[in-house]
C-alpha cells in the first residue's frame, strides 16, 4: 500500500542526499558515529534537519534524574531508549547497546556499502555452530532460563499453585526448554589490515582523534566481512617501525616526514608474513600529506607500483587536515597513480567527513 507520507519521505531523503534545497543542508545533523570501545554504546546515525529556533544555550545543561547515584557520580546516558524520553527534548541521536556486527550492518546499510568479495582461497570452508533455535530437550548447560521460568510461572498460575505472597517457582520437566544450534558451512577468508600513520610534528591530538575514529569504522566493517582479521600498525616520521595498537594511537608526535619509510616497512611486513594469494590485504595510510621532498614522493610511487599495489585489495590514503603543511601528497598520488583502481584517496577535515570517507573506501566492494 502506498502511503501519503512516502512523498514527504522521498523529499526528505532527497534533501539529505543534497539533491535539492542546498540551504537546508546547513541544518543537517548526523548521528555522531561514535563507538565507545569495550562497551559498544553506539549512536545510530539517523540524519535529521534541525530547523533553527530560539532555544536555551549551554548553561542549561542540567536536569532531574532518577536512581541510586551519589552526588559526584556521573549520569550515564546509556538509557535503553525504550519508552518515552525524559523531560529533556531529544537531540535526535539514538544511543543503544548493540554488537559490533550489528553496528557494521547498520553502517553498511546506511552507506549502502556492497559486501566485500574476498579473493583468494574461498573454496576452503570451515564449520561453525550457531545458536539459532529452541527445543524441548538438551543439556542443562544450555537451558534457556528466561523462557523456562516463564513457562513454569504460566503453568503455576493456570493450575492455581502460584502464591503471590510466596512467589516460588519450581521447574518441571515439561517447562524446560533449551537452546539449540545449527552447523553452518562458511567460506574461510582472512584479511590483514595494516594501518600506517604519520607521527611527524604536524600531527596533533585532533588529527589523531580523527584517525582513531576512522580506524574504528574501518575495523568494524572489515571484521564484519572477514572471518579472521589481523591488524598491524606502523608509525613513521623519517623512519618507520611497527608498534602495537596502544602505542599507535598514543605516540607523541615529533620529527619530519618521510613517507617512503613506512611503505618500505609495509612491504617488508607483507613479504615476510602475508602471502597475497592467501590473504586479503588492506593498507591504510593516514597523514597530513606534508612529505619532506619531491624525491621521496617519487620513491613512494615507485614502491606502490612495483611492490604494494599488485598484492593489495585496497590501498586507502586518508589525508587529515592539519594547521601546518602543504597537504600535497594526495595530489602526487592522484597525478601519478590516479589510474590504479586499488588506490583510493580521501580527505578528512572534520568528524563529518569520516562518513563520506568510509563510503569512498568501501563502495567498490573490495
Amino acid at each position, binding site marked *: 500500500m502506498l502511503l501519503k507520507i512516502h512523498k514527504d519521505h522521498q523529499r526528505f531523503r532527497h534533501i539529505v542526499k543534497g539533491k535539492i534545497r542546498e540551504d*537546508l543542508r546547513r541544518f543537517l545533523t548526523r548521528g555522531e558515529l561514535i563507538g565507545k570501545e569495550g562497551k559498544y554504546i553506539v549512536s545510530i546515525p539517523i540524519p535529521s534537519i534541525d530547523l533553527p529556533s530560539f532555544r536555551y544555550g549551554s548553561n542549561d545543561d542540567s536536569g532531574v534524574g532518577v536512581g541510586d547515584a551519589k552526588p559526584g557520580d556521573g549520569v550515564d*546516558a546509556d538509557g535503553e531508549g525504550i519508552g518515552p524520553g*525524559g523531560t529533556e527534548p531529544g537531540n535526535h541521536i539514538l544511543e543503544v547497546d548493540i554488537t559490533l556486527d550489528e553496528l557494521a550492518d547498520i553502517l553498511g546499510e546506511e552507506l549502502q556499502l556492497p559486501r566485500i568479495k574476498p579473493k583468494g582461497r574461498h573454496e576452503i570452508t570451515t564449520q561453525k555452530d550457531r545458536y539459532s533455535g529452541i527445543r524441548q530437550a538438551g543439556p542443562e548447560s544450555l537451558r534457556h532460563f528466561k523462557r523456562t521460568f516463564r513457562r513454569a510461572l504460566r503453568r503455576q498460575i493456570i493450575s492455581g499453585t502460584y502464591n503471590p505472597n510466596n512467589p516460588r517457582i519450581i521447574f518441571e520437566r515439561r517447562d524446560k526448554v533449551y537452546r539449540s544450534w545449527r552447523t553452518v558451512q562458511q567460506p574461510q577468508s582472512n584479511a590483514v589490515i595494516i594501518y600506517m600513520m604519520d607521527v611527524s610534528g604536524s600531527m596533533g591530538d585532533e588529527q589523531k582523534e580523527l584517525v582513531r575514529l576512522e580506524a574504528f569504522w574501518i575495523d568494524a566493517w572489515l571484521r564484519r566481512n572477514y572471518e579472521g582479521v589481523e591488524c598491524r600498525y606502523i608509525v613513521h616520521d623519517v623512519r618507520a617501525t611497527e608498534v602495537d595498537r596502544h602505542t599507535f594511537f598514543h605516540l607523541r608526535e615529533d620529527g619530519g616526514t618521510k613517507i617512503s619509510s613506512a611503505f618500505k616497512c609495509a612491504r617488508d611486513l607483507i613479504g615476510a608474513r602475508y602471502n597475497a594469494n592467501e590473504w586479503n590485504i588492506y593498507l591504510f595510510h593516514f597523514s597530513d600529506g606534508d612529505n619532506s621532498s619531491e624525491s621521496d614522493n617519487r620513491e613512494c610511487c615507485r614502491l606502490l607500483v612495483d611492490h604494494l599495489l599488485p598484492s593489495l585489495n585496497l590501498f586507502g590514503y586518508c589525508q587529515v587536515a592539519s594547521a601546518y603543511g602543504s597537504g600535497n601528497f594526495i595530489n602526487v598520488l592522484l597525478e601519478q597513480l590516479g589510474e590504479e583502481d586499488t588506490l583510493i584517496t580521501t580527505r578528512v577535515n572534520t568528524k563529518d567527513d569520516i562518513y563520506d570517507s568510509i563510503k569512498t573506501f568501501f563502495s567498490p566492494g573490495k
Partner: protein
Amino acid sequence: MPSKLPSDIAKQVKTIAAYAREEGLDFYETIFELLDFDEMNQVAAYGGFPQRYPHWRYGMEYERLRKQHSYGLSRIYEMVINTNPCYAYLLRDNQPVDHKTVIAHVYAHADFFKNNVWFEHTNRKMLDEMANHATRIRRYVDRFGFEAVEKFLDTCLSLEDLIDPHSLFMRRTTSGPVPQENDRDIDRQVVKYPSKSYMDRFINPPERLDAQRRRLRADHLKRKRAEPQNPLRDVLLYLMQHAQLEDWQADILSMVREEAYYFAPQGQTKIMNEGWATYWHSTVMTRYCLQDDELITYCEHHAGTVASSPGRLNPYKLGVELIRDIEERWDLGRYGREYEELTDMEARRRWGKGRKRPERVTGKESAGREKIFQVRRIYNDVTFIDEFLTPEFVDKHKLYHYRYDPSTRRMVVVDRDFDKIKKQLLFSLSNHNRPYIYVVDGNYANRGELYLAHKHNGVDLQIKYATDTLTKVQEIWGRPVHLQAQINDEMVLFTHDGEQSQQRTVTDDLPQPVHSL
C-alpha cells in the same frame, strides 16, 4: 484506511468503555481503528492525524520512527487525538492483552482531553481543520510552486514556538486605543505639594511643574504611538497582522500558528496526561479485564512503560506515581495547613496512619479519588509539580539534580536537594523549555524595524540558533529585525538587516525600544 474492527476487539472496546464510565471517566465517543506498523508510523509522524500538508519534516519523523522500530528501540502501541469524536489507533499486530491495555489507556486520555481545562479552547474538529490546511497548502503549491511554499513553511516552522498559550484564557491589555488625555487630565497628574499660597512659588516652582507637564505629555504621546502597546508574546500573531506578506503567506502563517496552539496543551500536560492514562489502564486492567494467562505479558509491558533509566525522567512514571501519591495523601488526610506546617518528619510520616484507606473504590467514592479527579480538571504540568511534589516523594523515588561538569565533561549528579530539584523540574516544564521571546517594539527608532527581546530567567539563548532564527524572522518581517538578549551577563543586540547579521553590546547611545522587559 478505515476498516471495521474485528468482532473480538469491538467487544472489548464496548466492555472497557463501560468499566471506564463506571469508574467515573467521562469522554467523547471514541472511534478505534486498527493500523499496521507502517500506517501507524505515518499517523504518528503526522502527529496523530490522517491528513497533513506536504512537508519533509513529516518524512523525517517517519524515517526516525521506522528506524527506531526496526532496530528494536521503541514501539508505538497507540495514538489518540484530541477531537470530538475522539480517534484512536491500535497497532494491528499487538496481542489481545495489549489491545485491552491500550483501549483502557486511550479512554483515560480521552477523558483528560475532554475535561482538563487547558484543552478547553482546542478545536475539537481539528481532523477537518488539518485536512483543510492540507488542501489549502496544496492549492498554494499549485499556484506558487513547491519550493516557494516549502521554503516559506520552513521559515514559519522555525518560529512556531513563538505563541502565547495563556492568551486563550485571559484578555491581555493590548487591545483598544490609549484614551485621549487633554491638558486638564495632564494637569491632574502633575504632583503638587501642599503649601500656603505665599510659599507656593517656592515649594512648587512653576518651572518644575512645567517640566513635569512636558514629560507627562511626551510620555502620553509615546504611549499613544507605542506599537505594540504592551510587550507581546504572541510573535506569530504580530507578524501575521503587521508584516508585509502576500495573502497566501499570511494564510500559511496563520495555519502554522493555529496548529501550534492546538498542540500546545498537549505539551503543557504531558506528565499529567500520561500519568492519568497509566493510572487508569492499570486500574481497569488489574481490576476487571486481566485474564490469568495474560498477567505476565501485561506486567512486562506495563513495566516497560513506566521503566526509568538513570538521567532520564519518565513522564509516565512520574505522572502515575504523583497521582497515586495524591490519592493516598487525601485518603489519609495528609494535607491542609496543620499537616503542611509540621516540620518533624517522624510526625509527618505517622500522620493519618490510623485511618484506613478504603479498600476498593469505584468512581469518586473516596476523598483521594475525588481529589485526583479535581486535579485532572484544573492543573497543568507546571502547577501540578508546583503543588504536589513533596520532599517525601522526591526521597522515595530517588530523584536527583544533575548538571554538566566542565572538568570531567560529563553529566554529574549534584545533590538531592528538594528545592533545587523542584526548581529544575519547573524550569524545564515552563514554556516547553523554550525561551520567552516578546515583541517590544514594532516600529523601532521610527524606522519600521522589529525589536524582539528575550526575557532572561537564568539561562542564556543559544547564540548560533538565535542568529539563524532571527534571519527567519527578518524574511517574514521584510525590514531589519533586532533581538535583545542577555548573554554572559551582558545585554547584546543581535540585528539582521536582510543581508547580514551583526551583534553588538547594548549601550546608552542606541535608541531605546518603546518597552523594556
